[in-house]
């Protein structure tokens, strides 16, 4: 036998198994590479780059997800590879025994199977890299066609090489161990099914007498095949954690973050301002989902200040629930350093620095604000107090511990009492009491009014009435519905989260292949027994049921553990103050059950194929 021919022939002889190992290896490498390359391009990848879009608070939530999903995808990849190589080698231990019994020396045997491992690992990693790059190009092209701004960065080949080398080394490490172990086993042991299938003599497991015959065989087989069963349960549990974090986490985070944006902007809210101001306000809100240059807009231009007539008419129109008066302007702000005092040592420690920058300043009437923010700290309380609530991006960019510091504005210090997530000006915003702002700027009139219309009344009629009033007072002013821009903001969040939901797709396919590998191992081990059952009157579907019950038990136990852990991780670690709606629960359940059903159906393929075989072919 030529040394180079044996491994190639052996791999080709086991076509289904070889293709399973190759495909799962390819998908693991591809999914990790795709995540890294695509994450970099969409700008909220592992590197935490914000690229001028999304506020830092939102970006943080996404990045936490991406990093966690990336870590899990890598771990899942490593576990899947280790499992598939274990299954591959488990089915070769008998051959190793036979080779040894025929007098083949240990080093030659090790050489044969190591060559097989090297071939399969190299081909798998290579195909994985190609698939990962292609998936990256395809996704970029697809999203660009939908009009989304995707960076056209060239492929980072250093990253590609890193992923290739990492997975290659991992596969070799995981694969070499079982080969080395098998090569050391005595021939008699290696030939014995009790050894090469990892059987223990007696499971000690007793099922209750009433349980069905099929369940009895399925359970005992699972316990007898302990080593492989534990590995596959571990592998699938990790995959289900990943799927749950991505799907359940993705959906919960989507609902939660969308609600943050909706509450901050206000659903069914109408903006009343000068035409130019409306355009500028729209631009400020759109900075959340696209990179926009700052315009040189003069917010305090006399023309943009709200005429008294408009403010007066708002009170006379029935159906207007809330009137939120605002003074919006841009100004230079400065971080004010604070000190902490340690009463025990008497030492003072400085908090913060003297950073400066431009911020959008919004003066609001604390009791009349339509928006409800997701915030840390508290909202403004008194109309004249020198207190401020800053946006998350500003807090991150300019403050060390914002809630312990103040912000300097027009030479006045405002104590920072809250940090909020707000899409306006992409989180680069400072909210202060309107009265205090008017006092220090000398601008007595607001330039923006947002109103909320009673949803039980005819909205169109009220808006028409409002437009008519405003036109009579000042034709330069207009009524602008914020729902359109709000929908675009929310849609952008939806697009990002949907990208996250599909991240574990490759891992899910790999997990299906693992389960198929496990089912094949079960069939190989019980082949003779299934033949006997058939010969003694069992129908092919009985055999399919025995195999599918084993697969289902493995799948269900992994599913339960994976989902429980995934939900805990999502709710406790990844999403702060999660919002779980009934619809979200249904959506999550739908996705997760679909994943379970899909894997289960895939795993039945070898069973149905096997059951169709003639009895004699099974038994011989």
């Amino acid at each position, binding site marked *: 036998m030529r040394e180079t021919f044996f491994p190639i022939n052996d791999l080709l002889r086991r076509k289904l198994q070889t293709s399973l190992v190759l495909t799962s290896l390819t998908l693991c490498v591809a999914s990790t590479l795709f995540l890294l390359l695509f994450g970099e391009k969409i700008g909220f990848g592992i590197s935490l780059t914000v690229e001028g879009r999304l506020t830092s608070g939102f970006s943080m939530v996404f990045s936490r997800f991406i990093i966690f999903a990336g870590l899990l995808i890598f771990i899942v990849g490593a576990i899947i590879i280790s499992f598939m190589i274990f299954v591959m080698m488990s089915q070769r231990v008998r051959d190793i025994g036979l080779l040894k019994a025929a007098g083949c020396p240990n080093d030659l045997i090790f050489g044969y199977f190591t060559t097989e491992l090297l071939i399969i690992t190299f081909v798998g990693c290579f195909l994985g890299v190609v698939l990962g790059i292609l998936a990256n190009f395809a996704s970029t092209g697809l999203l660009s066609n939908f009009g989304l701004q995707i960076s056209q960065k060239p492929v980072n080949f250093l990253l590609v090489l890193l992923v290739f080398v990492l997975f290659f080394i991992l596969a070799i490490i995981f694969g070499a161990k079982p080969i080395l172990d098998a090569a050391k086993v005595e021939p008699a042991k290696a030939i014995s099914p*009790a050894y090469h299938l990892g059987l223990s003599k007696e499971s000690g497991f007793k099922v209750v007498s009433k349980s069905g015959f099929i369940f009895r065989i399925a359970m*005992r087989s699972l316990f007898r095949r302990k080593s492989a069963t534990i590995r596959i349960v571990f592998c699938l549990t990790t995959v289900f954690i990943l799927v749950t974090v991505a799907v359940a986490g993705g959906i919960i985070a989507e609902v939660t973050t969308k609600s943050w944006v909706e509450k901050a902007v206000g659903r069914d809210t109408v903006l009343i301002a000068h035409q130019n101001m409306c355009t500028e306000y729209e631009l400020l809100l759109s900075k959340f989902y696209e990179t926009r240059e700052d315009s040189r807009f003069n917010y305090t231009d006399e023309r943009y200040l709200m005429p008294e007539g408009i403010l007066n008419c708002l009170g006379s129109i029935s159906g207007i629930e809330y009137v939120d008066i605002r003074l919006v302007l841009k100004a230079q702000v400065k971080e004010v350093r604070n000190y902490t005092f340690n009463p025990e040592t008497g030492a003072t420690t400085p908090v913060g620095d003297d950073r400066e920058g431009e911020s959008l300043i919004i003066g609001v009437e604390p009791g009349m604000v339509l928006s409800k923010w997701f915030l840390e700290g508290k909202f403004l309380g008194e109309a004249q107090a020198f207190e401020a609530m800053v946006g998350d991006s500003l807090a991150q960019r300019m403050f060390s511990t914002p809630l312990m510091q103040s912000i300097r504005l027009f030479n006045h210090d405002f104590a920072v009492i809250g940090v909020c997530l707000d899409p306006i000006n992409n989180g680069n915003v400072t909210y202060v009491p309107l009265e205090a702002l008017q006092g220090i700027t000398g601008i007595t009139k607001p330039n923006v009014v947002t109103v909320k219309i009673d949803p039980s009344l005819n909205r169109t009629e009220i808006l028409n009435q409002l437009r008519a009033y405003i036109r009579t007072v000042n034709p330069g002013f207009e009524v602008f519905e914020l729902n359109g821009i709000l929908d675009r903001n929310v849609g952008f969040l939806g697009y990002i989260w949907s990208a996250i939901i599909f991240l574990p797709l490759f891992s899910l396919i790999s997990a299906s292949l693992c389960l198929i590998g496990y089912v094949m191992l079960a069939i190989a081990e019980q082949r003779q027994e299934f033949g*006997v059952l058939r*010969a003694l*009157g069992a129908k092919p579907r009985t055999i399919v049921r025995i195999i599918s019950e084993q697969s289902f038990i493995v799948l269900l136990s992994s599913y339960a553990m994976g989902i429980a852990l995934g939900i805990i991780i999502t709710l406790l670690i990844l999403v702060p103050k999660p919002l779980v709606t009934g619809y979200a629960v249904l959506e999550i359940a739908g996705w997760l059950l679909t994943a379970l059903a899909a894997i289960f159906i895939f795993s039945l393929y070898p069973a149905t194929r096997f059951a169709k075989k003639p009895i004699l072919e099974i*038994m011989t």
Partner: protein
Amino acid sequence: MKTGQTVVLASLLCKTYQMGDLKVEALRDANLKVEKGKFTVVNGPSGSGKTTLLNIIGGIDKPTSGKIVVFGHDLSAKNEDFLANFRCHRVGFVFQFYNLVSTLTVAENVAFPMEWTRKSENQVEKRVEELLELVGLQHRVEHFPFQLSGGEQQRVAFARALANNPPLLLVDEPTGNLDTKTSLKIIQILLKLKGDGKTIIVVTHDKGIFELADQKLYLEDGKLVSLNA
């Protein structure tokens, strides 16, 4: 049954296996008639097609050509569901290498062919007790196959083959792997079953079993010859 007392009727039975480019003829125009309650022994050199013949009679395999009628049913024309029912209710198989299900205990191995019938749990339990008493293994009820000797495993295989009280018993080399003392126990079981009026076809080289036969057949190169004449 259309043929009266005839249980097995095979005419011009051929079975060819394709092994790569090579065609192997396991059976060539074999004719066989087995009457109800008769003890038939098939003998012949290794590879002569004895097991193939048993498999075709039992509905495990199908002939390449020719006709095999068992209990009035042309088995070559039946689908897998029919054959599964047929094997469950009409035929008892004892394989050369016992082929017990390793995940089941002795009692469960004997009981499982009854799982596909409508017997109650009590009936199954009673039947298992009866059969294990018949083969002398009452004390091994909770043991797993790997805890039994070869002879004991063969006796369990007999008990299992009789679970549904099939009228036809097909036995392949029952003493081939056993010592003389254990073989005697098997012969006693066969004798008892013959006394019960079962139709039995045994493939064997064992002279002790040969002596029990009502009909002796010899199979060589796929051709079946009667030794009674």
